[in-house]
């Protein structure tokens, strides 16, 4: 669904991403992006969703060059994201914020999203007062509204326990299958990634190191040397 061609993102003289080419986002699949700190994972995500402009290269979405499109345009075209740091509306109730976005994006079945993300019991709670795990689910739910074709999640497990992260990934797999959407996930928890992803891409120092199934990535000597180490 997304084709990245020779993507380079530079902050002044520093290149956060260098000449990356990769295909992402097949419907019904979870595609994870991993790599050590400073690999450029979040910058990569930001470039795809329009938060960072590419210094060079192009990004295609459904075979259309979207490199110059606004964030809003990409969202309305079906590209949704959640954030590394939970990004919700703390002063609004959970229902208020879901309702607001659902009305704007013409979501036909908000109830299904509420049920899928297990939020029905906390709908009238002000989001700031909800537990962190609930806030993460609200974040993902906001991304799911409007029948997106692809959902990009930046470290959805950040701040969650291993069990909560595994649960979240299970939710994602279920969502990707049920709603026939592609999920692209940046994640640090390598075990969760290998257990629940269909495809894995590895970045290192802003460069594309490898893409493959979890088994292929585990066996890739370059990935082992650069990121996984002997523990893998």
């Amino acid at each position, binding site marked *: 669904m997304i084709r990245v061609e020779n993507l380079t993102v530079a902050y002044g003289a520093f290149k956060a991403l260098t000449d990356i080419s990769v295909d992402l986002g097949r419907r019904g699949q979870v595609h994870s992006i991993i790599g050590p700190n400073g690999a450029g994972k979040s910058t990569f995500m930001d470039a795809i969703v329009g938060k960072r402009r590419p210094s060079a290269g192009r990004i295609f979405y459904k075979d259309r060059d979207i490199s110059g499109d606004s964030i809003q345009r990409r969202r309305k075209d079906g590209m949704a994201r959640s954030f590394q740091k939970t990004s919700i509306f703390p002063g609004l109730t959970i229902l208020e914020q879901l309702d*607001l976005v659902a009305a704007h994006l013409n979501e036909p079945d908000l109830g299904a999203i509420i049920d899928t993300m297990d939020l029905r019991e906390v709908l009238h709670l002000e989001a700031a007062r909800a537990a962190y795990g609930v806030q993460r689910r609200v974040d993902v739910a906001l991304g799911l*509204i409007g029948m997106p074709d692809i959902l990009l999640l930046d470290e959805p497990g950040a701040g969650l326990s291993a069990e909560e992260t595994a649960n979240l990934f299970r939710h994602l797999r279920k969502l990707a299958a049920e709603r026939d959407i592609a999920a692209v996930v940046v994640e640090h928890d390598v075990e969760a990634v290998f257990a629940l992803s269909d495809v894995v891409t590895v970045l290192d120092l802003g460069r594309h190191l490898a893409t493959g199934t979890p088994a292929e990535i585990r066996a890739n000597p370059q990935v082992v040397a650069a990121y996984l180490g002997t523990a893998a």
Partner: protein
Amino acid sequence: MTSLPLSRRPVSAMRWPVLGGVALAVFLAGFLLPGYLEGGYLQSMLNNGLITGILALCVAFIMHQCGFVLFGIAAYYGLAAYACAILVNSFGFPAMAAAAVALLVTLAAAFLVGAIVIRVKPLAFMMICLSLAELMRHLVALPSLRRTTGGSDGLLFMPEGRVFGIDAVDLLDTGQVWPLIWTATWVIAGLFLIVASSHFGVRLRAIKENEERMRFSGFDTYWPRVFAFAGVGLAAGVAGVIQALATGFASPEMFSIITSTNALLAAITGGVSSVVGPVMGGVIYTWAISEFGALGYSQLFTGIAVILVMLFIPKGILHPLRLLGRKGGRA
């Protein structure tokens, strides 16, 4: 006006008719006030208090809904007053037409300013708004514009015709202008309350809380705030036009930092999260300045009072009353 928060309604549906009835009774009773006060100091103080209250409502609305600290509300207050006075004096407009055109001019100005300042950072927003008001104050006082604006002496004018059925000349009487001020306060408070409770209001607060998430949810985050800013400018313009008609005078001091500061402090004193608080804040603040001024310590005592409010009831004087009301309701 009811004691309803701008953002949500804590009362059950069963209590709405009661609150509505009380609000209607207070609104109607307000029209009887001039008969008891018979003009004089108290009436004048109440008139000024409500004008400050309207400005405080504007400041509170934009602060609560958009997170902006508006330090230059005087620009729109003064602009509307001057536009009205100039249209009457220089172009012979009747009072009602002058008021209407003055409000259109103010709306256009607020829209243009809003389109610029919404993009900048909060500190720059505050300083640009403040500077604009000061700029206007100096502009109308320019000797070269004296024939039109009255220069630093201000502009006296004698409105003619009728304004909502009241002879414009009669508006110079503090008791006669009261129904206009009273109604304008309720209408503006009511409109702010409706907007805050609407989908648009939720959208504004969501932008305030997390603009980035709003953009990633497909929302335009610019124009709603420009419209809110323009609406607030228009409401301040209403206060300016009424004040001009009530005094037959537009003064450079209407643009002054003191006018803006008074509105901001009145909003903070009353509390920015309801529509009643800022109006009460306006009246109390005007009364306090007047009383402290009579003692010769206006700045000193007002400063102490504001510090005490900020320290002990930072959510405004209405907040403890609201908490008491909730406790009473649960008991």
